[in-house]
C-alpha cells in the first residue's frame, strides 16, 4: 500500500513536470489539449469498453453510466460546493445533506407534489431556495466557531430530514414520486450530421450524465472566478486566521455567510439534478451518513483544492461500486482505503497548493519579480 502511495507521490511530481511542459506549449496546443480532455469526459460512459484500462474503471454489477451520473456526478457537485464551505472558508459543516435535500425537495414539490412546473424552471428556484436556506441557517449560527458550528449544522441536516418525514405537505415518509424530468433536446442538425434527440427517460442514464457533467463545468467555472478574486482571498484569510482577517478589514461575517450560501446553492443544484434523474425521493434518501461521505470526499481529495475535491468526489462515489463484488465486505474495503489515504496523505490526494503564480497576470512592464 505504501508502495502504491509512493507511486502516487511520483505521479504528482511527474504531474509537475507535465505542468512545466504544459506552460511552454502554445495557446492553440493548450486549447486543443483542453478540448480533448473535455471530449474524453463526455465519452466516459464508454470507458469500460477501452481495452487495457476498461476493466479497471468498470463497475461490476451496476451499469457504468448509472454510476457515473447517480454517484460520481452527484458526489463531485456536492464536493465542489462543500469545498467552498469547509476547504476555503474553513467552516466545518456536518449537515450539508440538508441543502442537498432542500434542492431535491423543491424540485419534487414544484414538479409533482403541488405544481407541475417543468424541471428546467424548478431548477433555478431550487438553487435559490437552497441558497436562502443557507442564509437563514447561517445568520444565527455563523457566530459560532469550529466544533460548535459543526454540531449546529449536524442538527440542521437531521431537522431537514425529520421535517420531511413528518410533514404530509412534503409527502411524509412516502416521499414524492413522478418528479419532472429535464426537457428533451434536439434532434440537432449540423450540416450532414444529426445529433440527438437527447431524451431524458428512465432507461438510458447517459443524457443525465452529460447534463450533470455540463453542470459540473459550469460550477467549476464560477467557483474558479470566485477563488481568484477578492472573495476567494477573504475566504482563505478567514480560514487561516479569522481574527487577523477581521482586523485587516475583512467583513468576516458577510463573507462566511456568502460561503455558506454559495455552498448551499451548489448542494441544492446537486439535489435538483438527482431528483430529476431518479424521479422519486423520500426522506430515507438523505441520511446523516451522506453528510459524512460528502465531507469524506472533500477531505480525501484535498480540502481547499477544487480539483482535489473533484477527485475525492469521484473516489468516494466510484470505489464502493468498483468493489461491489466484495458484497458485504465492500464497505470495509472502502473504509480501509479511506484510513490508509488519511494515514499516508493527511492533506488529501491533491493537497492544497499555495499558488506560486501571482493572482494577477503580471503586467508586461516587468511587474513580475524575479525569483
Amino acid at each position, binding site marked *: 500500500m505504501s508502495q502504491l502511495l509512493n507511486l502516487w507521490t511520483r505521479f504528482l511530481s511527474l504531474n509537475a513536470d507535465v505542468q512545466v511542459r504544459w506552460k511552454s506549449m502554445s495557446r492553440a496546443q493548450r486549447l486543443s489539449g483542453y478540448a480533448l480532455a473535455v471530449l474524453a469526459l463526455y465519452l466516459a460512459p464508454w470507458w469500460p469498453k477501452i481495452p487495457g484500462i476498461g476493466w479497471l474503471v468498470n463497475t461490476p454489477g451496476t451499469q457504468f453510466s448509472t454510476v457515473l451520473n447517480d454517484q460520481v456526478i452527484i458526489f463531485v457537485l456536492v464536493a465542489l460546493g462543500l469545498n467552498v464551505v469547509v476547504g476555503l472558508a474553513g467552516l466545518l459543516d456536518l449537515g450539508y445533506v440538508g441543502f442537498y435535500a432542500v434542492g431535491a425537495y423543491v424540485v419534487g414539490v414544484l414538479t409533482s407534489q403541488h405544481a407541475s412546473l417543468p424541471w428546467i424552471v424548478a431548477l433555478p428556484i431550487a438553487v435559490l431556495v437552497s441558497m436562502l436556506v443557507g442564509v437563514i441557517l447561517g445568520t444565527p449560527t455563523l457566530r459560532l466557531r469550529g466544533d460548535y458550528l459543526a454540531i449546529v449544522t449536524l442538527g440542521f441536516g437531521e431537522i431537514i430530514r425529520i421535517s420531511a418525514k413528518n410533514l404530509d405537505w412534503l409527502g411524509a415518509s412516502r416521499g414524492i414520486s413522478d418528479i419532472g424530468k429535464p426537457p428533451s433536446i434536439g434532434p440537432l442538425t449540423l450540416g450532414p450530421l444529426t445529433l440527438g434527440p437527447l431524451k431524458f427517460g428512465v432507461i438510458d442514464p447517459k443524457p443525465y450524465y452529460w447534463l450533470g457533467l455540463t453542470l459540473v463545468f459550469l460550477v467549476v467555472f464560477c467557483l474558479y472566478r470566485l477563488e481568484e478574486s477578492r472573495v476567494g482571498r477573504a475566504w482563505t484569510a478567514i480560514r487561516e486566521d479569522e481574527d487577523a482577517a477581521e482586523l*485587516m*478589514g475583512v467583513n468576516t461575517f458577510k463573507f462566511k455567510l*456568502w460561503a455558506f450560501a454559495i455552498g448551499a446553492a451548489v448542494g441544492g443544484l446537486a439535489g435538483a439534478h438527482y431528483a430529476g434523474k431518479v424521479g422519486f425521493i423520500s426522506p430515507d434518501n438523505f441520511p446523516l451518513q451522506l453528510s459524512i461521505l460528502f465531507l469524506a470526499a472533500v477531505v480525501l481529495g484535498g480540502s481547499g483544492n477544487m480539483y482535489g475535491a473533484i477527485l475525492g468526489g469521484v473516489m468516494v462515489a466510484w470505489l464502493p461500486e468498483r468493489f461491489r463484488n466484495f458484497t458485504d465486505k465492500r464497505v470495509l474495503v472502502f473504509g480501509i482505503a479511506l484510513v490508509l489515504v488519511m494515514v499516508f496523505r493527511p492533506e488529501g490526494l491533491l493537497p492544497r497548493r499555495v499558488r506560486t503564480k501571482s*493572482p*494577477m497576470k503580471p503586467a508586461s512592464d516587468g*511587474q513580475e519579480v524575479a*525569483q
Partner: protein
Amino acid sequence: MTNEVLLDFNNVTMQFGGVTALSDVSVKIFRGEILGLIGPNGAGKTTCFNVMTGVYQPTQGSVVFNGSDITKLKRFQITQSGIARTFQNIRLFSEMTAVENVMVGADARKTSSIPAALLRTKHQRAEEKESYDRSMELLALMGIADRASDAARNLPYGYQRRLEIARALATEPELLCLDEPAAGFNPAEKQQLNELIFTIRDRGYTVLLIEHDMSVVMNVSDRVVVLDFGKKIAEGLPNEVRSNPDVIAAYLGVPDDAA
C-alpha cells in the same frame, strides 16, 4: 507633526473580571507624529492596541478617531475607518503568498463582491489590478518584493515581520499601530527598521509604536508615553521621559534606601 488630534484615547478603563488592565488612561495622538508607547511587561500596552482596534470593548471611556467615536464599531469597520495594526506574535495568513497577504489588506478599500467576481466586471478587474499593483509596491517599499510569490510561512522571520507592516499599510490607514516590530531583530535589522519607520512617517502616516527596545523607541519617537500597571506614569519627549524618576523606578525598581 501638527496640533491636530488624530486619535483621542479618552479616560479608558479596561477590566477583565477583577483584573484592571488599563485604569483611566488618556492618550492623544497627533497627526503626523511617531508616538512611542513603552512600559514594563504586563503594563497594558497591547491592551491599549486591542481597545483601539476594537478587539476589546473598554469598560469605561471612549476612543475618538478623526472626530468620530469608534468605540462601538466592529473591528473591520475600524480598519476601514483608518486604523491598521500589526501583531506582537506574527499572525500572517500562512498558506497565502506574500503578495496575497498584502492584497487582503488592500481589499479593505475595495467593494466588488460575489456578483462582480462571477461576471468579472470591468470594475472588478480594475480593482484586482489596483490591489495587486499597490501590494507589489508596498512589498517593494518594505524591501521584500523578491519573495512576493512565496507562501508567508516559508518566509524568513525578518520578512514576516515586514510583511505584517506591508499588509497593515495596504489598508490605507491614517494611523499605523506597530506592536513590537523589532522583536527578535539584530542591531543591523533594528537600524533598518528605524529607517523604515521614518519612511512610513514621511509618507504621511501617523505611527503608534509599542516597543521594548529602547534604542528603537528613543531614536524614532517624537513623543513617548509610559505605562505601568495599567496607568499612565509619564508622557513627553524621549529625553524628558528617560530622566523621569517614575519611569526609572518602573523599569529598574526603587532602591531600598530611597523608600
